[in-house]
């Protein structure tokens, strides 16, 4: 090989090498970190593998919020107007967490069908409905009157 060819060859090797490392990292990273979104109904129908982290979305059921005194644990129910799921969360809630608000939580289901959330997300807009939640409500309620609680 001439020096130019040798140089080119080495560059191609570097490029292929780094690209394949990056590809491996991407595949590994994606596998570990994809968070699927499920609705309470999907969870109730057993579509979610146990012990897997996922995002659960829905409306906060009015009157379902209970706070434990002195600890920061809070319990509430999430609904898609068909099924409800009991959620347990410890920590401060986002500014816009309130009854009837569409929110997304992140966590896992335990054996007694309680969802343990380590994150609760509600965006800064009182009209805001997380897109997944909005669509889900539209899907689940096609055949019934929409009853989004105020």
């Amino acid at each position, binding site marked *: 090989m001439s020096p130019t060819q040798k140089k080119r060859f080495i560059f191609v090797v*570097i490029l292929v090498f780094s690209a394949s490392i*990056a590809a491996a*990292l991407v595949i590994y*990273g994606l596998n570990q970190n*994809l968070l699927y*979104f499920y609705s309470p109904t999907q969870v109730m129908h057993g579509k979610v593998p146990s012990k897997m982290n996922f995002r659960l979305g829905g409306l906060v059921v009015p009157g379902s919020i209970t706070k434990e005194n002195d600890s*920061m644990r809070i319990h509430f129910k999430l609904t898609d107007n068909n099924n409800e799921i009991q959620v347990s969360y410890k920590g401060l809630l986002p500014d816009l967490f309130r009854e009837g608000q569409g929110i997304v939580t992140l966590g896992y289901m335990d054996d007694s069908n309680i969802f343990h959330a380590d994150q609760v997300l509600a965006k800064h*807009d*009182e009209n805001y409905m997380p897109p997944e939640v909005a669509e889900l409500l539209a899907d689940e309620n096609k055949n019934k009157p929409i009853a989004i609680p105020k």
Partner: protein
Amino acid sequence: MLSLIGYILLCASLLAALVQVVSPTIGLLLDESKYYNKVRVFAYIQFVFMFCSYMALTFAFLSNDFSILYVANNSNTSLPLMYKIAAVWGGHEGSLMLWVLILNVWTMSVCILNKALSFKFLARVLVVLGAVSVGFLAFIVFTSNPFIELTPPPLQGRDLNPLLQDPGMMIHPPMLYMGYVGFCVAFAFSIAGLMAENLNSEWAEKVRPWVLSAWVFLTAGIGLGSWWAYNELGWGGWWFWDPVENASFMPWLVGTALIHSVIVTQKRNIFQNWTALLAIVAFSLSLLGTFLVRSGVLVSVHAFANDPERGIFILCFLSLTVGLSLLIFAIKAHKIKTKGGFDIFSRETLLLINNIFLLVAAFTVLLGTLYPLIIDALNLGKLSVGPPYFNIVLAPLILPLLLFMTIAISTAWKSDKPLLVFNRLKKIALIAVISGIAFPLYFYMPNEMVVFIATILSIWTILGPLDIVIKHITKNTSLLLRAVSVFFAHAGVGILMLGIVYSSYFSLQKELVMQTNEFVNIGPYKVQYKNVDLQKGPNYVSLMGNLDIFKNEVFITRLFPEKRIYKLQSKPMTEAAIHSTLFHDLYISLGEPLQRDRWGVRIYYKPFMSFLWIGILFMFVGGIISISTSVIEKRKIQNTS
């Protein structure tokens, strides 16, 4: 009336932009210089119209003209003056106006500052800049007119989104746009150079200050955005791997590759096509960023379908720009021959490696950002890519980059010997390894290997260029200035890395319910909760917490975290209070009231948080020194010749 004037000015500016594209194109095709040697004039005319149109919109905000829908949606009589000016770019339509205005400012700067350019070359540059301007102006005029009237006009506006009512938010978007749009100049120079089949070192010398300026603004814009998120969102975080953030980070990565490859082209007259390609990619990613943020696809791919005009317009514009520029590249690039050669072990090679790492990093970010959108568009389910993805993927790409940074600046152009470089760097390597192991071990006892590796490499990145500055102190000023600019830029990366690693691995967090005079210890601090009282702001009421901070039983300061409720939008907003020192931040934000005067409080202790901001500031300063050095060198050459 005002809305009509504004709209007409906007259309006039679109016309001027069209002429700016068409006239020189005809001239270039017919080879008639009379069609293109006056092209500057059209750029000036376009700027004047655009500027006046923008001022009309600003005036509408200042005069509370709620007969304009956009003003009514984004302003309010009680909004402070500062935020009225910022509210102009607070929504979709106005931010696009700002985009085009900034494009015009860049175009003007090219016309004024690049006097030495040949008419033909300048004409080509202005055609490209004009074409981009036409695209965006048409987008505003046909889909996003900010001057739409609202009848009857309401008495009061809906107020600016409270999240945006922050000094950081005032300057962050213009800075970011200056960066985004700034890559357009490098892009136009590349297309013009490709058309002329000339991308030599003279070309690189002209394009370099423009690339650097865009990069400096983008760096500042991203830095300000992070600073705003840290202060305003109340979660103690500063970067969330949100698609909007990624949209600004990708052009930054490619832009960083570009500022290095353009140096190689300038100094050695090689990598010419590569530099042009990077400029095309950087600008395409800026456009992609604009598309992601402005089309609504990020809210949901289906929101894109709700407002198809806008989304499809930008998507077509994006494909057209990328497609056309790559086509030009494909036709012209092979005609550009480079002569200079270099050895396998040389600064050229190391800079190429750095380029590949940066490009691959940008690509992985792109993948993580677009993956959920693609999956959703194919109806394969809804998912999101969690922040750990980006950390896992980027850490192995960025850490070797730090290693190469210092090796590259210590290696000679063209050819060098590994042993010589090793001898030059061995002292620094030794200091970096010893201090990089001893420091975290003594203070933090970390379990993770990556903390040691990152500390060693950060110190390595800071000391390497520092050593070169010391060696250059007695040499001539131009060389010294170059060394100083490299020091600031590279050390900035090291300092930033230290800030990122220490503030994320060793931060402490407490969330608890506090009542009057209760204490809590966090790190070296003791925090005492006093009370929460009611304060009034111009357009909000505030629940203001009073917390006393002690260190070693000595009173340090009192912090006032707030919970603001904006009257018109009745949105609660958390304003964190931060006690910031060089080596750590104490960050307090208020949660919510619980029974009997007790409040939920969130307290963070974040070591080395200031390093993050200092690192970004260093990079910014490095960029500015580098621009001024380029200008000074140019003056010298002009004076001697």
